[in-house]
């Protein structure tokens, strides 16, 4: 096991965190929307991309464009090297033991579906149980429902309290001899809650139950060390981490991935094929059928390196300051109700305004050049839990500023004015 505390800091020189300079790296931030400077606060949906990511993708298509793992020619070798270098970057980012534990997929959704399909097919039977929480995104609910429907297993849901915190006692009570897998978010997209994942994993492992963490939201805001967490699977998307859309990662402990059957069949995932018998390729290729999203993986590698040069600690500290500042600033707005007030939370401010539907808030804020998300955030059970049809959600990234929060508060006052409140 590697003793490194910070898996990415060693080879990459850090630069001090200066939000003004950081913003210069993101071309999309420097535009006007509805005649106003863009204030982008919809980062939980997707983040903007820094120049090094855009350049890495462009370089691949302009210079190295070729397929991987099959050509003897120079371009194919360059493409293969760049693709596998990206895998090594991801491995370091997560501090996985080995590159064979890093599977490139389309995104978090595909990563979770891969586990539901492949782990599920191998280990889940009628009468078994899958345990999730009440604050999951639809992508960490529906794949398990499909699996349960197919196998006759049962989906159990650990409840949350009025602050949006997991009820750990209830969770523990729901862990039984029938539980085959725990699948839980590492940062709730609708509430901002960071559940006590270390405790969850400890409790599950004490009963021999593996744990999948949905890291779609967490990876850009929380330092992830899969060995230290000891999670069995970790899923995340590139595009919420300043990388391109269409690329994501499933980390899985090698012993699980070895035992699991392939997810999809096709090229690259085999070592030999005859009509009588096919031998599957070794890890991680067993789970990467077909030509992968090569440019996407390279872009994701560049995004991770970009984040590493700033340091997740510095990013997290900056975002924590923004969240505290914003929480305090909006608390003075009459009729504003925060949805999600967990003690452990990050980057997300979900709220309702009395008498004004979130959709109307979203339209009026857009008029001020402010992009937020309004809706159920693909977490309808969470909305139901809090008795609201939808919320307005502000979500921060490393490039947001206190001045933007001030503009948001002014604009929310304007929303109330439009509605005569």
């Amino acid at each position, binding site marked *: 096991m590697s003793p490194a505390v910070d898996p990415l800091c060693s080879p990459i020189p850090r630069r001090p965190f200066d939000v003004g300079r950081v913003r210069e790296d993101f071309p999309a931030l420097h535009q006007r929307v509805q005649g106003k400077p863009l204030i982008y606060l919809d980062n939980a949906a997707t983040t903007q991309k820094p120049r090094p990511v855009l350049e890495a993708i462009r370089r691949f298509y302009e210079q190295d464009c070729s397929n991987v793992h099959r050509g003897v020619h120079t371009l194919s070798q360059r493409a293969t090297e760049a693709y596998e270098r990206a895998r090594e970057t991801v491995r370091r980012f997560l501090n996985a033991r080995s590159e064979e534990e890093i599977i490139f997929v389309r995104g978090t959704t595909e990563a979770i579906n891969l586990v539901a399909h492949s782990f599920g097919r191998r280990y889940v039977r009628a009468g078994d149980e899958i345990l999730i929480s009440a604050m999951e995104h639809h992508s960490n609910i529906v794949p398990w429902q499909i699996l349960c429907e197919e196998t006759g297993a049962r989906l159990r849901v650990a409840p949350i309290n009025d602050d949006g915190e997991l009820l750990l006692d209830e969770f523990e009570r729901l862990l039984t001899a029938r539980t085959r897998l725990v699948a839980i978010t590492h940062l709730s997209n609708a509430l901002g809650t960071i559940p006590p994942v270390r405790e969850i994993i400890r409790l599950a492992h004490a009963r021999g139950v593996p744990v999948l963490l949905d890291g779609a939201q967490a990876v850009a805001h929380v330092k992830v060390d899969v060995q230290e967490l000891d999670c069995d699977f970790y899923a995340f998307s590139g595009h919420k981490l300043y990388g391109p859309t269409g690329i994501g990662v499933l980390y899985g402990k090698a012993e699980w991935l070895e035992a699991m059957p392939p997810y999809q069949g096709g090229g690259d995932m085999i070592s030999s094929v005859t009509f009588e018998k096919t031998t599957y390729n070794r890890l991680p290729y067993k789970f990467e059928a077909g030509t992968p999203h090569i440019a996407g993986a390279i872009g994701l590698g560049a995004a991770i390196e970009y984040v590493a040069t700033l340091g997740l600690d510095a990013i997290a500290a900056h975002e924590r300051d923004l969240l505290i500042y914003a929480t305090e600033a909006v608390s003075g707005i009459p009729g504003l109700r925060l949805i999600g007030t967990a003690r452990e939370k990050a980057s997300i401010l979900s709220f309702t305004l009395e008498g*004004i*539907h979130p*959709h109307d808030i979203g*339209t009026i804020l857009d*008029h001020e050049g402010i992009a937020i998300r309004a*809706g*159920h955030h693909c977490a309808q059970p969470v909305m139901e839990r809090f008795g609201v*049809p939808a919320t307005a959600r502000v979500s921060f990234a490393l490039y947001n500023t206190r001045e933007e929060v001030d503009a948001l508060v002014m604009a929310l006052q304007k929303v109330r004015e*439009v509605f005569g409140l």
Partner: protein
Amino acid sequence: MNDLRDLYQEVLLDHSKRPRNFGVLADADHQAVGHNPLCGDKVVVYLRMDGDRIADIRFQGQGCAVSQASASMMTESVKGKTRAEAEALFKRFHELLTGTAGPETVSELGKLAIFAGVRKYPVRVKCATLAWHTLHAALARKAETVSTE
């Protein structure tokens, strides 16, 4: 701010805050549920028909100001109208929102013309038409939930 005022006119805000004909119609003989999965807006339209004429109409639902006001104003506009008249009004309303309505159509729409402001907000067109799609389904006696997606 002008575009915004065009969208959120006083009449619209008034109807969204105090919707008319809101609630269950106990003796309804037609009804349909409309759903906008994008934002979770939901509308139920209840009708009591007298032959070919809409004798009474009520709606229930929750959603943004645009969808609630549109439902409220729709109920006022179609009450007492025949099936064909209501459908024709829906067609004109749709033309208004997609910017294909001529000046005559706009005058025929009466106070529904205030929804012209929605045109500048393409993602909000569905909010304004949800109740109308639901009315259409109720008139057609379609049992299933209609969706704007």
